């Protein structure tokens, strides 16, 4: 493979933003038919590098070659014309339009007089959707799809042209295991056609499963390229974060107190039914299940965003009614939501103001907000979570995806809740910070917080939970203690198969 000439080459790319040197002389080449991983911590510059390649950012220095020819990627269309397509980290779809319209946006097939050729549009779209093996069709409204399915629409969009290189920026962050399998099939298919794939992900197991080479960035500079077959997780991690990562920390069993939160026979329409569980002080309860199993909806109901149709919620043994998030917050319940951009962050605001938003009412002196108190909170969680930003004044929308997530987590941690619910806490978070966040969750529990972790990642649930609630299709299938749980019986429980039937 090494003697093949590359499809594209990036040479000494430099990109500076106000206050940040996001890329500092990065070079990279992509060969036909290879899957090339791009790795690095949150804010290392991965997305920025790809945006430079995709014509979304103009580099300050450096050259881009497609084959042997130097190309100035002055806009996304140029990249597309050169066969480079980009599947973004953040979704950018028009909710009100159908799947087909989204996929062919801007290039809808025409008939005479500029009329849209709907028939062709739908058949073409269905042909692509077939390749992706998804459960929706060309006419579905995108707003009605789950995040995972919206992601598939983004991918479908890239397949409309015959690409030479496809960039995936954290495509699996919100996909379930079965959807991942489909995605990997798509990638393998591209690969067999000689297409080069650049693949950004924080998930080591994926990287080692599907990639051929791994390039590593740290703080905007290029740290080297490794052949996947000749390296291992430790080496890559070391290259990424510049030190060895201690993953061996054992789960410390700590004293648990009384029941902090009890949910009895809670139902909410068709979303979930007859759900009961308890969370004790000092306990981490993991909710595991497929996307759509009703876990997020339970969290939202406890947080007052949805009205339950039946059942009770008890805090410290007292029945409570929670009609709104402010009720929940006042009672010491916090929710780190699943979709940070849509639900978690005010993207146009700066980092500090985002972090202090729920408690700004308390951070006042006289009628005015207190800068000092606010900055103190920001500094504390900035350090604790190792958030990479040039300062608190930076607009949150300009942070890298992982650092945005840390701002949301910091926001809710700073509220010192009694019950902390985290929905997909480490989506898009790099390995180093991920284990930091896991440790943090364990530490919070040790301090007496009752914690609920909703996650679609099995290793995560296994790693942080004291007890695991397995859900399928809106119902609790089974509860596991750490002693009982195995990967096998967990998978069975969340696919709705009862044990004896499988055995």
């Amino acid at each position, binding site marked *: 493979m090494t003697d093949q000439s590359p499809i594209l080459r990036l040479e000494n790319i430099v990109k500076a933003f*106000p*206050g940040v040197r996001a890329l500092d002389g990065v070079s990279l080449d992509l060969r036909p038919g290879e899957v090339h991983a791009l790795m690095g911590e949150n804010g290392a510059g991965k997305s920025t590098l790809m945006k430079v390649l995709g014509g979304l950012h103009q580099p300050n220095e450096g050259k881009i070659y497609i084959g042997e020819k130097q190309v100035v990627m002055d806009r996304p269309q140029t990249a597309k014309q050169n066969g480079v397509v980009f599947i973004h980290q953040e979704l950018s779809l028009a909710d009100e339009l159908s799947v087909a319209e989204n996929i062919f946006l801007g290039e809808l097939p025409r008939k005479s007089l500029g009329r849209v050729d709907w028939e062709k549009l739908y058949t073409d779209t269905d042909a692509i959707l077939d390749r992706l093996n998804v459960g929706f069709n060309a006419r579905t409204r995108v707003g009605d799809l789950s995040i995972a399915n919206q992601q598939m629409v983004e991918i479908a969009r890239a397949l409309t042209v015959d690409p030479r290189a496809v960039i995936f920026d954290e495509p699996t962050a919100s996909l379930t295991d079965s959807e991942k399998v489909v995605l990997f099939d798509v990638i393998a298919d591209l690969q067999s056609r000689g297409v080069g794939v650049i693949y950004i992900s924080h998930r080591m197991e994926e990287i080692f499963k599907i990639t051929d080479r791994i390039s590593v960035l740290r703080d905007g500079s290029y740290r080297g390229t490794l052949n996947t077959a000749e390296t291992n997780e430790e080496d890559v991690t070391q290259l990424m974060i510049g030190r060895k990562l201690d993953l061996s920390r054992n789960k410390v069993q700590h004293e648990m107190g009384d029941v902090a939160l009890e949910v009895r026979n809670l139902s909410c329409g068709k979303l979930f039914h007859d759900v009961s569980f308890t969370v004790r002080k000092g306990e981490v309860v993991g909710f595991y299940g497929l996307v759509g199993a009703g876990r997020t909806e339970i969290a939202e109901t406890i947080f007052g965003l949805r009205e339950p149709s039946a059942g009770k919620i008890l805090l410290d043994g007292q029945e409570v009614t929670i009609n709104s998030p*402010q009720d929940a917050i006042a009672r010491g319940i916090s929710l780190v939501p699943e979709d940070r951009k849509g639900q978690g962050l*005010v993207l*146009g*605001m700066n980092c500090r103001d985002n972090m202090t938003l729920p408690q700004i009412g308390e951070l006042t002196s006289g009628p005015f*907000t207190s800068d000092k108190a606010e900055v103190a909170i920001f500094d504390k969680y900035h350090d604790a979570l190792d958030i990479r930003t*040039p300062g608190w004044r930076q607009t949150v929308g300009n942070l890298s995806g992982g650092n945005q997530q840390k701002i949301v987590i910091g926001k809710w941690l700073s509220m010192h809740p009694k019950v902390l619910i985290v929905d997909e806490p480490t989506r898009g978070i790099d390995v180093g910070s991920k284990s930091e966040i896991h440790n943090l969750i364990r530490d919070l529990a040790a301090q007496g917080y009752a914690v609920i972790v909703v996650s679609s990642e099995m290793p995560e649930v296994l790693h942080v939970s004291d007890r695991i609630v397995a859900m399928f299709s809106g119902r609790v299938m089974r509860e596991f203690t750490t002693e009982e749980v195995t990967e096998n019986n967990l998978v069975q429980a969340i696919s709705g198969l009862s044990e004896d039937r499988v055995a």
Partner: protein
Amino acid sequence: MSNINRTDLIKQGAIWAFIAVELAFFSIAGKFLSVTDATFMDPENMLLLLKQSAPIGIIALGMTIVMINGNIDLSVGAIFAMSAVILLDSMGWAWMQSLGVWSIPISWGLALLTGVVLGAINGLIVWKTGVDAFIVTLGSMLGYRGLVFMYNGEQPTSHLNWTLVDFAEARFLGLHTATWFLLVVALILWLVMTRTVHGRNAYAIGNNREAAVNAGIRVGPHFLWNFMLIGFLSALSAVVFYSESGSVNPNDGMLYELWAITAVVLGGTKLTGGYGSIISTLGGVIAIQLLRKGLGHIGSDTETVNLVIGLILIAVLFLDRQLNRKGKEELRV
């Protein structure tokens, strides 16, 4: 960190640079084209200009907050007229006249209360029905104007109180009463928007309503407060203006909503919400008044003035878009 806020500073400074350009242009052009001998940059003339900016200016300041929220209020002109009618009519009531000077604060209070109540109606409808503020206030704009006509038919409502006229024409440190009202309102609202919880919440709601709800901000009551505030300011604007003029026509205040919105937008506030500044709106208000006065000074008629302001507005918004795109490296769509 200064470089992060540089684009912000440039944007907020732009309106003042524009004002400087206007001043220079009219001073020079005035030398050749002026219909009078008076120089344009005359201090007295400038002070008068500030005074004349006050009625729409006070409303525009309130509009800024409503627009940062992502809402809009089209009924301000009608609230302005209705409050003026209450102000002048109440001073003529028999029991009020028996109170002597005390009738003044009471009539002011009644007028301001009118504004707050009408604003509260807007706010409650927006909150409780969830209908878009544009539509709600489009309706109330027509409805409130109807009330004005029902009150006194086509007749003007008049009452001249010389104590009030003296007050309105008084000057303190060279500035007219109306100017003082404008500046004090601007100062208070600036503090509210930059230094208080309410201001912070306003930006958060305008920028991402869902995230604001998740942070425990009560969006409905917040809207209600802001509609009451802009109702109050519309009434205050009427109080300041009609204390001096003493007579209100039922058509007064028409198109005020559009002038206020124009000033806010010129000042850089986004129609989509989440971004904007009180001080820049003040700049927008002054810029418009300068244009009107300046064009009048060089002999243009009202139609030309409106045409020019319209063109400038579009040019400014276009420039703003270009700047934003370059500055923020946004995805090009």
